[in-house]
C-alpha cells in the first residue's frame, strides 16, 4: 500500500539511455585502466591514477545505478563522509606505519 507513496517520490531516476551511456562510460574507463597498466608507469603514479579512475567509476555507479543522485542530498552528506573519514584515517596512519616499519626491518 505504501509502494505508491515511495514510487511517486523517489523514482524520478535516469532514463534507459542515460544508464546505457553510464555503462558505456564505465566500460571505457575499464579499458583505459587496462591500457594504462601496460604503460609501465612508476608504481605510485600508476596507483594514484588507477585509484582516481576507480573513484570516478564508483561515483558513477553510486550516482546513477545506485540512485544516489536522485535521493535526498542529505543522505550523501550524512553517510558518505563518515565512511570516507574512517577509510582516510586508516590510510593515513596505516601507510605511514607500513613505511616506518620498513625502516625497522632486520638487516
Amino acid at each position: 500500500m505504501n509502494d505508491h507513496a515511495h514510487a511517486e517520490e523517489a523514482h524520478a531516476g535516469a532514463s534507459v539511455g542515460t544508464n546505457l551511456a553510464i555503462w558505456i562510460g564505465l566500460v571505457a574507463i575499464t579499458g583505459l585502466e587496462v591500457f594504462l597498466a601496460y604503460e609501465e608507469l612508476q608504481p605510485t603514479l600508476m596507483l594514484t591514477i588507477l585509484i582516481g579512475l576507480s573513484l570516478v567509476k564508483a561515483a558513477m555507479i553510486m550516482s546513477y545505478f545506485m540512485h544516489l543522485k536522485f535521493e535526498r542530498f542529505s543522505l550523501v552528506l550524512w553517510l558518505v563522509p563518515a565512511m570516507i573519514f574512517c577509510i582516510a584515517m586508516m590510510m593515513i596512519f596505516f601507510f605511514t606505519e607500513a613505511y616506518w616499519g620498513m625502516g625497522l626491518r632486520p638487516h
Partner: protein
Amino acid sequence: MHDVKTDAALDSAWSGGASPFAMGSKKLGMWLFIVSDTLTFSALLITYTYSRITNPDWPKPFPMNPAIIFSTTMTVVLLASSLTMVMAVMAAQRNDRKKTVLWMIATMAGGLTFMALHLREWFHLFEEGATITHNPWGTPLFGAVFFGVTGMHMTHVLIGVIYLGIVATGYGRGKFSAEDVEVNGLYWHFVDLVWMFVFPLVYLMSVKY
C-alpha cells in the same frame, strides 16, 4: 526547546513522523549495510596495500593472456549485470513483474558467468602452483591476499546471486514489492562497485609486462 520553535521545526523532514531521507527503511538499512561492508573491504584492501609496501618482493604474475583478458572480461560481465539490474529495477517501478523477473534472471546469469570465469582463473593459478600459502613467484602473502580478497568478493557475488533468486521468485509471485527489488539492486551494484577497486588493485597493479 520551547514551543516557539515548534511549528517551524515540525515542517522539516527531521521533525519526526516522516523518513527524512524519503526512502523506505529497507533501503536505508541496505545503505547502512553497504557502509559497514565498505569498511570491511577497505580494511582488507588496506591490508593488501600494507603488505605490499612491506614486502618489496611482491610478485607481478599476471600476463595479458590469460589473466588480464580474463579479468577484464569478468569486469565487463559484472558491469553488464549491473546494467541489467538497473533495467530490472526500472521494470519493477513500472510494475512490470514479468520483465523484472527476466532482467533479474539476466543479472543472475551475469553473476554466475562472473563466478565461472573467476573460478576458471583460480584453477589456472592453482595449476601454476599458486595457492593461498605458496606461489612460485615471490612472497607467499601474494596468494593470501589474492585468494583472500577475491574469495571474499566472490562470496558476496554468490550471496548476491542467491539473494537475487529469492527476490525474483518472491517478486514474480507478488510477495515482494518494487522496493525489495530496488534494495536488492543496491546490494548488487555494491558488489560491482567493490570489484571496481579489486580489479585495478589486485590485477592491474600486478601486471607482467
